[in-house]
């Protein structure tokens, strides 16, 4: 079966190159049957790669340890669902996963895109096939990417899966993030198709609307799940550490967020065409950059795969894709003249422009901070570290500015707004923000950034509530509907706008959660069985934890040492919190990895009590623990849910989309071809 998988990879590589040649060689691209051939080729590539994927899964589930990848990342006693996720646990498997998902998206783009956009589809197919071919060439030609490579012997058992990856979050988090990264290729492919075929009207923008939202949504879910995984699995008590790999996932999210706003200006006013193309190209390049960061070893990260030579492939591809894309943009520059001009500083277009500036500014600062150690070493020959204090200092003010603009944008009308209207629109949200700030200051809050975040959160929430209230009342007045019907129809008929407001609510909720971490408290303590420790939370609750004892037992593929502590809050019993040490073993009982730690968490809307069993003193039940109280963490996860709901509402089909430009707007040589 692995031989079939290997063959399928080679077949897909050649088919990818074939589709690329058809799509990019002008004399071939303009032939009438090319689009159909490219379309069918993309389906064939997807089919071949699914055959390869099934082959790898079969080898994993059959414990075929002669396959080096299977021996490296699985073992006989690995639970079935982790056998499934072991597919993307290592570099080689994750490369195949990329290729499979991208080829599937490529095929879906061909099948699901409206026929109105057919003139773009052959180039779209060519771009997606080229990117798939790149990933396949990395796998097959780099010497360190082929998941079907075999060992010279058959080990009796495999190494098993890294314990930190044996978490339900890791079954879903990497695929979500990959889906986000990978799906950016489709909008990028449409952008290149629009540039290459000179169909630069609003058609390509409409064609990719759902793809961009889908990509942004997957990235958002992937990032939030990654935060959740870091929080519950890594045990350091936080969820974001500004690690280079975390930063790499944030970069395309930021540029895509900027695009989702600025594209509205292009749709409504025919402006920012160059900027929007630049954002899509940048998003794609940043998604590849993220992949490069995780695989090259150029920048130290706890998330990095083993360093290998495939980093060079990614640098080469990044340079080539960047050069070709921006050269194409430069060549079409004169054809991308804006159809209108910004009329006023007090207009929604201007607010969106400033929003774009801040989003791209944050993206730049994250990229800059991530790469600054390399620059410093090159210029000064001095190694430096750029960690969380740097990123917080640079990005928190920009983040607050962004939060303010999140509230300001919806309050300003398109084109220009009168002073009277500004007063009318801003009064309630500004009052909400100021009242929030006053309450916080009166309550004794003195942390500037946390106060600002919560006050601005109040302002943005005021904006969102005002928009819903006014919209609902208007419907009630105009159509005589009751409040719930009016609210439902308001959202249903303006999904993009009101779904967007829900996303804004999610963003506020994230900021509230982030602000809570400023008040985190922690304590290390050593307890004998029966001893107690007390910790006062930022809310004023007193937690009392009593060490109940240590139990040791064997579970499925590990030896577990579990510490149990009874938790009381203000004298009332809350429950028993358990934190574990896990020593994973292979099927012969031999230890496979260093012991890992499982944290114990009890969570409510206000705060999390976070328990880490650090270890034993003198090999006895006397143990050392780290206890942390993190306020408002629940809201970060709630924000993720709000964001998904808002994103799904925004994405829901609305039924109408404008047609692509007629062929008369296309390149002269293409017109000749069609006439012929």
């Amino acid at each position, binding site marked *: 079966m692995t031989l079939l998988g290997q063959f399928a990879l080679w077949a897909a590589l050649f088919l990818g190159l074939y589709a690329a040649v058809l799509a990019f060689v002008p004399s071939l691209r303009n032939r009438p049957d090319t689009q159909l051939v490219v379309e069918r080729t993309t389906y064939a590539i997807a089919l071949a790669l699914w055959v390869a994927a099934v082959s790898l899964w079969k080898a994993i589930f059959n414990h075929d340890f002669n396959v080096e990848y299977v021996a490296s990342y699985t073992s006989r006693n690995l639970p079935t669902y982790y056998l499934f996720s072991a597919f993307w646990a290592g570099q080689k498997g994750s490369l195949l996963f990329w290729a499979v998902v991208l080829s599937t998206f490529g095929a879906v783009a061909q099948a699901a895109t409206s026929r109105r956009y057919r003139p773009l589809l052959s180039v779209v197919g060519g771009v997606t096939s080229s990117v798939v071919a790149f990933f396949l060439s990395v796998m097959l030609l780099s010497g360190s990417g082929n998941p079907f490579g075999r060992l010279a012997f058959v080990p009796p058992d495999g190494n098993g899966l890294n314990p930190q990856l044996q978490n339900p979050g890791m079954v879903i988090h990497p695929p979500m993030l990959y889906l986000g990264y990978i799906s950016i290729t489709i909008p990028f492919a449409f952008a290149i198709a629009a540039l290459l075929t000179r169909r630069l009207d609003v058609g390509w923008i409409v064609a990719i609307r759902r793809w961009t939202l889908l990509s942004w949504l997957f990235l958002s879910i992937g990032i939030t799940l990654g935060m959740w995984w870091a929080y519950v699995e890594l045990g350091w008590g936080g969820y974001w550490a500004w690690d280079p790999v975390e930063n790499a996932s944030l970069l395309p999210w930021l540029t895509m967020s900027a695009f989702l706003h600025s594209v509205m200006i292009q749709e409504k006013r025919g402006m920012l065409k160059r900027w929007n193309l630049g954002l899509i190209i940048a998003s794609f390049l940043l998604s590849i950059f993220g992949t490069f960061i995780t695989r090259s070893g150029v920048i130290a990260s706890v998330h990095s795969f083993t360093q290998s030579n495939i980093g060079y492939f990614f640098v080469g591809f990044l340079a080539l894709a960047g050069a070709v894309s921006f050269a194409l943009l430069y060549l079409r520059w004169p054809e991308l003249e804006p159809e209108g001009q910004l009329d006023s500083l007090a207009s929604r277009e201007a607010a969106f422009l400033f929003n774009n500036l801040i989003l791209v500014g944050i993206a730049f600062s994250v990229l800059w901070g991530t790469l600054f150690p390399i620059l410093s070493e090159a210029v000064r020959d001095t190694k430096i570290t750029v960690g*969380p204090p740097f990123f917080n200092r640079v990005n928190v003010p920009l983040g607050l500015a962004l939060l303010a603009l999140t509230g300001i944008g919806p309050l300003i009308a398109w084109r220009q707004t009168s002073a009277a209207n500004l007063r009318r629109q801003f009064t309630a949200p500004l009052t909400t923000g100021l009242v929030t700030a006053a309450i916080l200051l009166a309550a004794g809050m003195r942390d500037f950034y946390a106060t600002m975040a919560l006050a601005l959160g109040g302002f943005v929430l005021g904006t969102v509530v005002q928009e819903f209230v006014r919209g609902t009342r208007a419907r009630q007045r105009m159509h005589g509907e009751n409040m719930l019907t009016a609210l439902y129809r308001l959202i249903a008929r303006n999904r993009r706008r009101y779904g967007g407001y829900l996303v804004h609510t999610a963003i506020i909720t994230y900021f509230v959660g982030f602000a809570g971490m400023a008040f985190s408290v922690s304590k290390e303590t050593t307890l004998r069985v029966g001893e107690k420790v007390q910790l006062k939370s930022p809310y004023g609750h007193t937690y009392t934890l009593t060490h109940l004892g240590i139990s040791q037992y064997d579970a499925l593929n590990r030896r577990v040492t579990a510490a149990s502590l009874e938790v009381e809050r203000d004298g009332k019993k809350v429950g028993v919190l358990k934190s574990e040490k896990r020593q994973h073993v292979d099927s012969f009982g031999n230890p496979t990895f260093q012991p890992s730690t499982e944290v114990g968490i009890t969570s409510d809307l206000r705060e999390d009590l976070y328990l880490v069993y650090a270890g034993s*003193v003198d090999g006895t039940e006397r143990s050392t623990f780290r206890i942390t109280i993190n306020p408002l963490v629940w809201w970060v996860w709630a924000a993720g849910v709000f964001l998904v709901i808002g994103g799904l509402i925004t994405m829901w089909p609305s039924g109408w989309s404008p047609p692509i430009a007629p062929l008369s707007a296309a390149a002269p040589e293409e017109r000749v071809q069609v006439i012929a």
Partner: protein
Amino acid sequence: MNRRAFLSVTALTAVPVLLAQDSSRTQDSAVTGAADPLRDPGSIGQLRAVTTPLDNAEDIKAIERRLKCTCGCNLDIFTCRTTDFTCTYSPALHKEIVDLYTGGKREEDIVAAFVTKYGESILLAPKAAGFNLLGYLLPSALVLVAGTVLGLVLLRRHRDRLLAAAPAGAASAPSAGLELSPEQRAQLDRAMGEIEQ
């Protein structure tokens, strides 16, 4: 939890978090308890030392949060020693800091001593001086400059538009018969506001 309860907690949640923000005082009770040997102490990794008050001292934590662990984890010393219990570097670095602290050195002296011994890369964020200023200031400076230019361009366009519109506006000034009453003006403003939405 019903919706009412959810909304109540949501509305109130930001306030109480502040009420005791600086009241992170902790207490240990000193109850003597059991310390039976574990059946398999080898399966839980390194043995731990008994926690001392200096392990929880805010001064020590503040210093450790500025310094990076040298094990290659990318974490600060405090986070590494309280998270990665397989790391042998962070406990040693912690001991070094505690020794310097108990020897009378304070935060800046200890940080400086670490930079001298381990190099600038021990700092979790580079000093904001010299070439590093470029790292700190460039992103914000670019955003500020671009924002200012954008704002100025928009203001200028707005002014030009007003100037261009002024003569035309004067030529087509409404006659006295079209003057609006204050009520009509307010009604028109409201209607325009709704349209602008």
